[in-house]
């Protein structure tokens, strides 16, 4: 249990600013499973149970029942082996709290590639030993299904589904699903445009950040944070590029490349896991023509990029109608297309 994860007061409606902690369902030292209820919260509209985002142990409780807590402020701290890779539920204040928390704990984080040791003394067929050495796989991390708990070639070849990895994927997935579920009820509208495809990801991120910054009337944050969905071995990773329009193009390009590579191995820097104000999902590299952009909590816009033709891509935009008119959505997408076409 090497990672301290703050569980915060969630934002359950666009108007919610604080919530009242009703009761804790856990105490310090309790072992919890992903999905277990941690505490209950009351707002002016609803009561809600807040679940554990991952398996872990309760480290500390930061409030008393009855306390009114701002959204994004931590309510309790969990210790978990699962690196929670998603996004924050809060606003800028949240970020400050989390970054502070993160700075304290960052050095203690186990490298995500250090797998859980299942077999302390290993029995393996000779071929599995030589293959594992060749592939750089630690046989102690592999579940043995062969006779006498011996690791077979079949076990080695299926090693990526070891229980620790599966738990991590599950926790990650649950967190994202929960976020999407929270924003599902928001009134929203989607738009699509076809554009020439000769733009780089960094160009798109920059252009989209500039477009959003040019419309402060639509913003609920003072900064722009562009989350990019990347598939990693633990599931979807969402590294956030903060104020990318303030970076030089080449710097941003290098940052996107290095972060994407790191994310694939589940190694996104913690500081890049928070502060998203919009999300981009590029499905064109899976040869998909489009995917409906989904709004993440506390974000007003979301983009997807689909494959059009050899020279074209489809950009889709979803907007939160609480903040924009239909017309604004069209303008935003139009401005984005104009910006990346100019480049």
């Amino acid at each position: 249990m090497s990672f301290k994860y703050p569980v915060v007061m969630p934002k359950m409606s666009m108007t919610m600013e604080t919530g009242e902690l009703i009761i804790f369902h856990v105490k310090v030292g309790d072992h919890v499973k992903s999905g277990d209820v941690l505490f209950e919260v009351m707002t002016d509209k609803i009561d809600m149970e807040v679940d554990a985002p991952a398996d872990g142990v309760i480290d500390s409780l930061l409030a008393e029942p009855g306390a009114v807590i701002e959204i994004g402020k931590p309510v309790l701290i969990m210790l978990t082996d699962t690196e929670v890779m998603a996004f924050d539920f809060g606003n800028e204040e949240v970020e400050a709290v989390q970054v502070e928390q993160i700075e304290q704990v960052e050095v203690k984080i186990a490298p995500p590639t250090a797998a859980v040791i299942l077999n302390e003394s290993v029995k393996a067929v000779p071929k599995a030993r030589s293959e594992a050495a060749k592939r750089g796989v630690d046989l102690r991390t592999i579940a043995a299904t062969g006779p006498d708990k011996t690791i077979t070639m079949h076990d080695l070849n299926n090693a990526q589904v070891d229980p620790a990895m599966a738990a991590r994927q599950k926790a990650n997935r649950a967190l994202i699903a929960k976020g999407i579920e929270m924003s599902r009820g928001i009134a929203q509208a989607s738009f699509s445009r076809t554009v020439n495809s000769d733009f780089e990801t960094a160009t798109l991120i920059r252009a989209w950040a500039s477009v959003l910054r040019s419309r402060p009337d639509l913003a609920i944050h003072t900064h722009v944070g562009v989350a990019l969905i990347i598939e990693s071995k633990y599931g979807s990773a969402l590294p956030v590029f903060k104020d990318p329009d303030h970076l030089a193009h080449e710097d941003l390009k290098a940052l996107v490349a290095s972060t994407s590579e790191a994310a694939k191995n589940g190694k996104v820097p913690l500081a890049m896991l928070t502060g998203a104000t919009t999300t981009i999902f590029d499905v064109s590299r899976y040869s998909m023509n489009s995917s409906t952009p989904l709004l993440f909590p506390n974000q007003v816009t979301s983009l997807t990029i689909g494959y059009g033709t050899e020279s074209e891509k489809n950009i889709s935009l979803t907007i939160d109608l609480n903040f924009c008119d239909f017309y604004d959505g069209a303008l935003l997408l139009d401005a984005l297309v104009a910006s990346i076409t100019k480049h």
Partner: protein
Amino acid sequence: MLTMAEAIREAMCIAFDERPEVFLLGEDVGIYGGAFGVSADMYHRYGAERVLDTPIAELGIVGAAVGAALSGMRPIVEIQFSDFTAQAMDQIANQAAKIHFMLGGALHVPMVLRTPQGSGTGAAAQHSQNLEPWFASVPGLKVVVPSNPADAKGLLLSSIDDPNPVIFLEHKLLYKIPGREPVPEGSTRIPLGVSKVVREGKDLTIVATGIMVNKAWEVCEKLSAEGISITLIDPRTISPLDMQPVFESVDKTGRLLVVQEGPAHAGFINEVIAQMAGSASFGSLIAPIKRLAGMNIPIPYAPQLEKAAVPQIEDIEIAAREIVKNWR
């Protein structure tokens, strides 16, 4: 299609015709035609000088053969049951096997000792043994274990050619069985010390000797219908032993099953396992090596117990299927 007894007789006759110094001696090999009918009419074709009926005295028979071999003859000795070689062991192990070495190569003993072995005839503990490890553990002896008529003919011709003593072990139950392949006409030799890949598959390697090659073949056929393909290797000569095809096959299949009729403890087949364990191909194994061999008991007289004491087709089938199924 010749039976193995006929193929062995044909090889002896070819050698008789090729070389006047070749002759056959043993108990009842002449007028009676051999205890298992291997020499048959050779007495009448070649006469009493070249097909010698001897007294019941194995030490004397082999001693006479060693002496004849030292003086330029090429004797073929038939011992009626391999169990009786115990009587002649000093001549085999201390004389025939050592003379070439101890006399600095000045003399050699080009003798072939043919003898039937194995269980399955209801002949009980003193007439049913598989004694190949006795001979294979004596440096200076070559040991041949043919599994079919064609191999028996070619290997026996090479054995008679060989300047050193060769022990030629014939399984009794194979004598009357024709081979899957016809016996080539003429005097083509099969070199000693070359293993035969009987059939090729990708899931399992079986190494078997003598009659176990036939039993394993049946299993290969049956499992092939289930989609399990097996490489079957017959070493043919267990001393010297050619392991190269076994290594190459295990590199492909990753699984090894070894089968012999003789008792498991200190049996010949353990040499195959030992050489595999110490080879570069060890790293190719995806399953523990499986051994099927006779029980460590004297062969029982009761037919059911005799059958239960040595591996049968069903045993090989179960072992082969389990290795492939359990070790993926």
